[in-house]
């Protein structure tokens, strides 16, 4: 009974805990995370300030670097992994990402569309006279 119930609980892990449980968290994981995150941050700041890159490509590169860095934070600091014991946490995260995507992409799309369909400001002023 005890054996089976503890195996059952061991099949899940709290977000933040390392796979295998609370005591298994190691300093090495945080060091790797810190190094990767610092590197990505440094690259982001560098490409913003340097003049050797094609300017229109910079925002896209920054967004990609930011998403990569968020992934580093999720894996190395929050210990959200693809392992079986983290399924619930990953599913909740996936749902959160879906909602965030809908809110941001939807707002930008709708507002750009409204902006596009709106009369230019000088014509609105004329109509108000």
């Amino acid at each position: 009974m005890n054996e089976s119930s503890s195996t059952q609980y061991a099949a899940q892990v709290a977000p933040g805990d390392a796979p295998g449980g609370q005591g298994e968290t190691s300093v090495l994981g945080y060091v790797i995370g810190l190094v990767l995150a610092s590197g990505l941050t440094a690259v982001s700041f560098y490409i913003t300030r340097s003049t050797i890159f094609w300017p229109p490509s910079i925002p896209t590169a920054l967004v990609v670097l930011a998403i990569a860095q968020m992934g580093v934070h999720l894996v190395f600091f929050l210990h959200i992994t693809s392992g079986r014991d983290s399924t619930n946490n990953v599913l909740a995260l996936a749902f959160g990402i879906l909602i965030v995507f809908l809110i941001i992409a939807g707002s930008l799309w709708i507002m750009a569309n409204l902006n596009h369909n709106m009369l230019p400001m000088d014509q609105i002023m004329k109509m108000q006279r």
Partner: protein
Amino acid sequence: MNATVTSVHSASEAKKRIAVGYGFWIFLLSDIVMFSCFFASYAVLVNATAGGQEGRQLFDLDRVAIETACLLGSSFTCGLAFIASGKRSAISFHVSMAATLALGAAFLILEGAEFSSMLQRNAGPTHSAFLSAFFSLVGCHGIHVSIGLLWLMTMMAQVYAKGFRDDILRRILCFTLFWHALDIIWVALFTVVYLIGVAP
């Protein structure tokens, strides 16, 4: 007999820890959804400067880089404090939490300096829709960091007064999750607001 009691206790404690951690994870995701609304309004209003100053003229990337370093370092020391709590080591827990507190406070001081310099340059939140969105987005993150620092000091006091009890350890888990989530939001923030705002 004794071993059985311990294993039943630790199994129910593990279950409770998973439930509490998962519930707090859901809260954090809903907090991130709330932040995404602020991000969306900022992205919509970023060009609505009403003839006032743009981000390019207002943002100081050096200060933002130091703020980022503070928050990233504090995320790391917060992880060290979490490890220390798992090992029941009070001294390294308090040292790591104090380092987290110092870095978080440095971040808030820098952000306060930025806000006051913008207010002095006649670029307060009432000046344009862009600045309203900027102050509500960055200010909302700053308020979260302030609340996090209050929570951090509470956790230090509770560990000092009560030791590493199971319920205190669950609170430390939740605090760690909260602090790392704030750092993730800051990554989105310095990229979308500052770097893309200043990029050529």
